[in-house]
């Protein structure tokens, strides 16, 4: 009698669906995340189609100032105090918001990864030093620092994006550090060192890909807060007036909030939906990347 087939053949289970398909299935299960994806797609679409639906400079005067929505077909969402088309502002503003969200997030995540990785991997005095710096940044109220940076270096869109990046890297850094601290003790890292793989390679090729999932999920949070921060800046009249951004629209619309609500409410809702889409997407990503056993 042959040995019973205790371990079923030494063949990998080839019938497994591809990674992407598995991920999509996990994502789809979360209805809220799908809603997030739809909203996000709408924002991206708005950004892409801005020049087609509302060609030309969104800052130019196109109609009678403070036309209410649904009154004039040329300006379906109305016009603001200077006669600018609100629809054009929303569409072109989607670009700015996405730009701010994406670039600021990239900056903060990159700084965060660099500092968190080095700190978490090497430990010791390097970690002590970097963590002191991180603590310092974390101790200053981030929005105050942001205000100071923008007030000081001027409210150009570049400065705003960089400043948002600078004030929001600490959380990703701590997260990456924590991941690295736990991952560097994992046996596969020892295995790589045992093979003679160098530190840089271990950090970026071995550990980082494994440390990324929570960071990617967190990136959606950073993205959301970036957009909120920009709008708060603009609200305090520290936005870049050369671009139609939602924050600027709210900031200026606020003066006429009581008479011409749409100048504030329309971009306000745009921000709300965009931030909501990021948050929901983040939830979905979390389901994909950090699946829990339970359904």
């Amino acid at each position, binding site marked *: *009698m*042959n*040995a*019973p087939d*205790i*371990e079923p053949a*030494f*063949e*990998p*289970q*080839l019938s*497994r669906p591809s990674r992407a398909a598995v991920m999509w299935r996990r994502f789809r299960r979360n209805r809220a995340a799908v809603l997030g994806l739809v909203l996000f797609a709408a924002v991206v679409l708005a950004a892409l189609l801005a020049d087609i639906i509302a060609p030309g400079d969104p800052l130019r005067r196109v109609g009678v100032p403070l036309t209410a929505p649904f009154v004039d077909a040329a300006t379906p969402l109305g016009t603001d105090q200077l006669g600018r088309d609100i629809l054009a502002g929303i569409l072109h503003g989607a670009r700015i918001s996405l730009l701010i969200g994406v670039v600021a997030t990239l900056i903060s995540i990159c700084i965060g990864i660099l500092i968190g990785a080095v700190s978490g991997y090497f430990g010791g005095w390097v970690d*002590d030093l970097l963590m002191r710096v991180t603590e310092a940044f974390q101790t200053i109220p981030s929005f105050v620092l942001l205000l100071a940076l923008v007030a000081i270096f001027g409210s150009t869109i570049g400065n705003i994006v960089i400043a948002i990046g600078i004030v929001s890297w600490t959380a990703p850094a701590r997260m990456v550090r924590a991941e690295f601290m736990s991952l560097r003790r*994992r*046996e*596969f890292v*020892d*295995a*790589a*060192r*045992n*093979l*003679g*793989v160098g530190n840089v390679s271990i950090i970026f090729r*071995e550990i980082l*890909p*494994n440390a990324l999932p929570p960071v990617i999920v967190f990136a959606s949070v950073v993205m959301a807060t970036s957009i909120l921060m920009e709008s708060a800046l603009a609200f305090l009249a520290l936005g870049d007036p050369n671009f139609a951004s939602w924050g600027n629209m709210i900031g200026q619309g606020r003066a006429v909030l009581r008479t011409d609500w749409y100048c504030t409410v329309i971009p306000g809702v745009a921000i709300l939906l965009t931030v909501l889409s990021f948050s929901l997407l983040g939830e979905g990503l979390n389901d994909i990347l950090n699946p829990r056993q*339970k*359904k």
Partner: protein
Amino acid sequence: MTDAPILEIQDLRISLPAGGDRPYALEHLDLTVNPGEIVCLVGESGSGKSLAANAVMRLLPEPHVHVSAGRILLDGEDIGAKSESEMRAIRGDRVAMIFQEPMTALNPQKTVGWQIDEVLRLHTDLDRKARRARALEILGDVHIPDPASAYNAYPHQISGGQRQRVMIAMALVLNPRLIIADEPTTALDVTTQKQILHLIKEMQRQHGTGILFITHDFGVVAEIADRIAVLRLGELVESGPAEQILNHPSHPYTRALIAAVPALTPPAHKDLSAAPVVLRAQGLAKTFAARGGLLSGRRQAVTAVRDLSFELRQGETLGVVGESGSGKTTVSRIVTRLLDADRGEVVIGGHDLIHADRRQLRAMRRDIQMIFQDPMASLNPRKRVVDLIAQGPIVHGVPKAEAHARARELLSLVELSPAAAERYPHEFSGGQRQRIGIARAIAMQPKVIVADEPVSALDVSVQAQVLRLLADLRDRLDLSLLFVTHDLRVAAQLCDRIIVMQKGEIVETGPTAQVFADPQHPYTQALLTSIPGRDWQPPKLTDAA
């Protein structure tokens, strides 16, 4: 009453959520536990044995996993018909449970006393004083040295063995009719395991409790079982009195399982004194220092290894044996220089690894490779198998194409299909992953392989296969193995010589057969007598090759 069974499981079926590997976790399970009887439910991972236990407590993660057929009778009453509040009255009172990992099974935020007290509070009307007295009494019953101080201690403040005693005390405090013990000794060291098994038996004798004992370890089974039921992938393959199953198994699966249990007979002593020494460790020491001072607080310094020396000869397998905290894992890390030693030297091929500079070290890494304990954690989940195996050679300058081709060859050497090359680690089972780990180690063509508990995370049957593969490769490639393990059965299977470690020091060393036959040091003696089922000689089953 005394003869009526406490627990009867009749034709039990447990359904799994749709879309899984299989529709039922458990099917057609029949099982009876009589008063004063220990019934062992034996199976490997995935056999559904733990779900059976949870079903008895009605603690399945419903509705995803639920009982879809059959009955469970407790003292003749169908628990499926009970309301949730009736069940709550039963749990902890008439049926109690002991879990595998006492650290996580106890609430870390509550004192031991509180947690025992909770059982009394839930099921009795005793006042506070009486409850406290009862809790202290039961703590004394389970041989906790100082019940009063244990009562006020938090779980993390007492040792693993004590914690499991606390769990047992908690289970016994109301004298339940039935205790379900789910792998209660798996997380413990052998010597502790022996004491706990002893305690369970003692309690069972005193109180006439019926025990449903779930385990994967035939050694443990041999130690305590009255009757045995063997599960495989949700099916009951065989059940009967312990003596019959252990010595005369009839079902092929049971026979294979028993055949896979390593015998306690070491291989015949090979004389390797003529073979060259490939690795010589001299005066190794490592203390985990108290870090920092003012800025981070003080931690106690721990001496993991003190003044350790040994030699490893060409073709030899040297076992390093000890319980947790003995420093055996530290040895494996120092020898591979994954950890820097405080003192000492490790000479391989005439060079000292400990004091090698960065460049020398990198070159020397070729010579000494490692196989890790956890086959999941030791393979980077983001890399394909072929990249994992070829990584070492590529780092050391082998062209990529060549390294990949070699990696594919190695796959067949470790008995994996070449198709495995393009897959990711998570697509493999534990045993397969460990084969990949082995392939990765030998891809470097090392002189020495350090294996750190390479089979302790695997099921018995898989363990046997991997051990056989290792032995086979060692002989074919003339490798030298430094084999770190806590499991004396495994050591007996593979090692030519063993080192027994306790608290960072070698207490005994010698050829395996000699040490097993005539242990000199009391600690070695204690270890050997603690091996579960040491008196049971697994039958030679000719059909299981």
